[in-house]
């Protein structure tokens, strides 16, 4: 090969390399942090699956303004330190334009300073009130606040003229946040908490607590936890013959709970996103179409039912999609458009963000559901 032909060839090669990005638009890189393993994997796994599914669906139908979506997913294992490292990596090395997740409140709080400093929009999939109160410029979330779930339960208790309740909460982040809300809101609904018990996340027998509650004057029991604790409590309640109504949190709003609690699940009422009872919703419900499509697609791809938790990731990706389609795809443009989102019908509820509200949901995001014959149905209001 002569020097001249080599030069020509080299020039051609250079041009070809430069031409690639111009021909096929670079993908939009979105970071995702989920606890795919570790204790909160019941959140992270469906979230990861859902985010991947939604991204694939977007790409199949032409992408975002002609650009493919590329998800960069890291597993945080429920560990704030790992979340912190992964967030830094997403921003510095992967150069993502936005981040969805993490799955838990603790992890989210750990990475808020990073995204605020780097000016990258974050849509958290965790429920803690403090994520968006006070409002942080770059932080949004899709999971419903615990406060809204508590309000739903108290409203019904008030209608049933129940004023004395016992609460039994798990001693982890989810349980103590629920406990705080239960105590804080009680007097707004003229409710008196006469027994305040806790249990450990790994406890396997709660008969002592339930016995104590049986000995009190409580007219209803509210239990706040995630599987398997509440299922054990449901069984203990049945074993001890406690006859008062049993309420649970949205933390157990999945088929799995009924499977674990068995017959003891019958009659338990809890606040949940609408996804659990999608088929029972009236056709006029604006969320119904998205919900049924989500459940069906998830079932088809992963062979299990899509749940409430995966829904948080669905909402996060779709909110980003809306923001990018309406505005630009720079972090700042995405943030501004996210804040302008109005009336978006997602899985978790109908989102309307504003500069004062980055959580975007009202208590209508929850419906009360009840276990009847081993199935979730809408509870009578």
């Amino acid at each position, binding site marked *: 090969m002569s020097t001249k032909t080599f030069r020509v060839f080299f020039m051609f090669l250079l041009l070809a390399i430069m031409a690639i990005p111009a021909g096929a638009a670079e993908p939009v890189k979105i970071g995702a942090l989920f606890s795919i*393993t570790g204790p909160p*994997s*019941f959140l992270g*796994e469906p979230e990861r699956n859902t985010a991947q599914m939604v991204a694939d669906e977007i790409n199949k139908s032409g992408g975002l303004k002609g650009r493919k979506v590329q998800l960069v997913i890291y597993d945080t294992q429920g560990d704030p330190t790992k979340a912190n490292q992964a967030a830094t990596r997403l921003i510095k090395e992967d150069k993502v334009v936005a981040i969805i997740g993490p799955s838990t409140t603790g992890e989210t709080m750990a990475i808020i300073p990073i995204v605020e400093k780097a000016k990258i929009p974050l849509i958290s999939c965790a429920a803690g009130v403090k994520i968006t109160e006070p409002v942080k410029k770059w932080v949004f979330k899709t999971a419903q606040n615990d406060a809204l779930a508590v309000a739903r339960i108290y409203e019904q208790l008030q209608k049933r003229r129940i004023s004395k309740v016992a609460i039994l909460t798990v*001693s982890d982040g989810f349980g103590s946040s629920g406990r705080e809300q239960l105590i804080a809101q009680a007097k707004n609904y003229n409710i008196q908490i006469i027994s305040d*018990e*806790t*249990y*450990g996340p*790994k*406890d*396997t*027998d*709660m*008969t*002592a*607590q339930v*016995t*104590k509650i*049986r*000995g009190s004057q409580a007219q209803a029991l509210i239990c706040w936890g995630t*599987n*398997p604790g509440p*299922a*054990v409590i449901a*069984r203990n309640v*049945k*074993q*001890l*013959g406690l006859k008062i109504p049993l309420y649970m949190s949205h933390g157990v709003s999945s088929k*799995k709970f009924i*499977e*674990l*609690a*068995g*017959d*003891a699940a019958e009659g338990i009422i809890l606040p949940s996103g609408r996804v659990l009872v999608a088929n029972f919703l009236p056709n006029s419900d604006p969320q119904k179409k998205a919900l049924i499509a989500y459940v069906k697609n998830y079932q088809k791809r992963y062979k299990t039912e899509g749940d409430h938790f995966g829904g948080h990731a669905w909402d996060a990706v779709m909110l980003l999609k809306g923001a990018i389609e309406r505005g630009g795809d720079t972090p700042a443009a995405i943030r501004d458009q996210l804040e302008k989102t109005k009336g978006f019908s997602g899985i978790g509820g109908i989102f309307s963000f504003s500069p004062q509200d980055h959580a975007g949901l009202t208590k209508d995001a929850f419906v009360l559901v009840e276990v009847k014959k081993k199935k979730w149905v809408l509870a009578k209001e």
Partner: protein
Amino acid sequence: MENSDQIIQYILSGLSNGSIYALIGFGFAIIYNATGIINFAQGEFVMLGGMLTIFFLNVFQLPLITSIVLAVAVATAVGVVFERLAIRPLKNASPLSLVIITIGASILIRGAAMLVWGKDTHALPAFSGNDPLYLMGATMLPQNLWIFALTAVIIMASKLFFQYSIFGKAMRACAFNSQAASLVGISVKTMVLLSFMISSAIGSLAGIIIAPLTMTSYDMGIMLGLKGFCAAIIGGMSSGLGTVIGGLLLGILESLGAGLISSGYKDAIAFIILLLILFLRPEGVFGKKETERV
């Protein structure tokens, strides 16, 4: 509801949990006496018992009793493999490094269980129904009776085994003085293997009888293992009545503490007792000063 009824209820719940702690503690004591090792993988055999039963029951659709027998057999086999691969090759290692190996093994078993069965919790059906029984104003489930009965049977059987069978006597001889035992022709290695077999079988049985009440998941073994360890310490690491009483005492104190003081301190109570005993009476509440470890 009367206060005394509540107390009876606490004691009943405590006895039922305590029986399980006693069985797990028993497993600790048997291995400790044969080898001087605290086997921190003991809790994982409890988990294996529950998970394997559910596995045979649901995946192979076998009847409950067959599933239980198979689960105990497989868990025992795991115990044998564990002893063969991890303990025996290091016979001259110090007890401390062997203890660390058991911790490693527990992480391995737990991880493998997570990969095979996933992270979900599983429920095992009760052996005979879920209708509560009433007793002096307190209630319990038929499963509680199963727990009491099986615990009693297992403990009596092992008592007979250690007192009267030739293998049991040989194991006791090893516990007294392994060198002298080997001089009179007892194979110490076989006795160590046997102790691992017995304790993994007892551990897995404990996991099976409690699974209908507590449900079971890949990580349930840690806490139960620690509680069983407490029971064994209270009992002075004896594989006799001491550990049984230790387990029952722990269960009752835990349940009374959770009911009468605060449920937030339920686990703390177990560990406070453990620390107190380690500080004040390291030979156990029922141990003699010059403890004969049988």
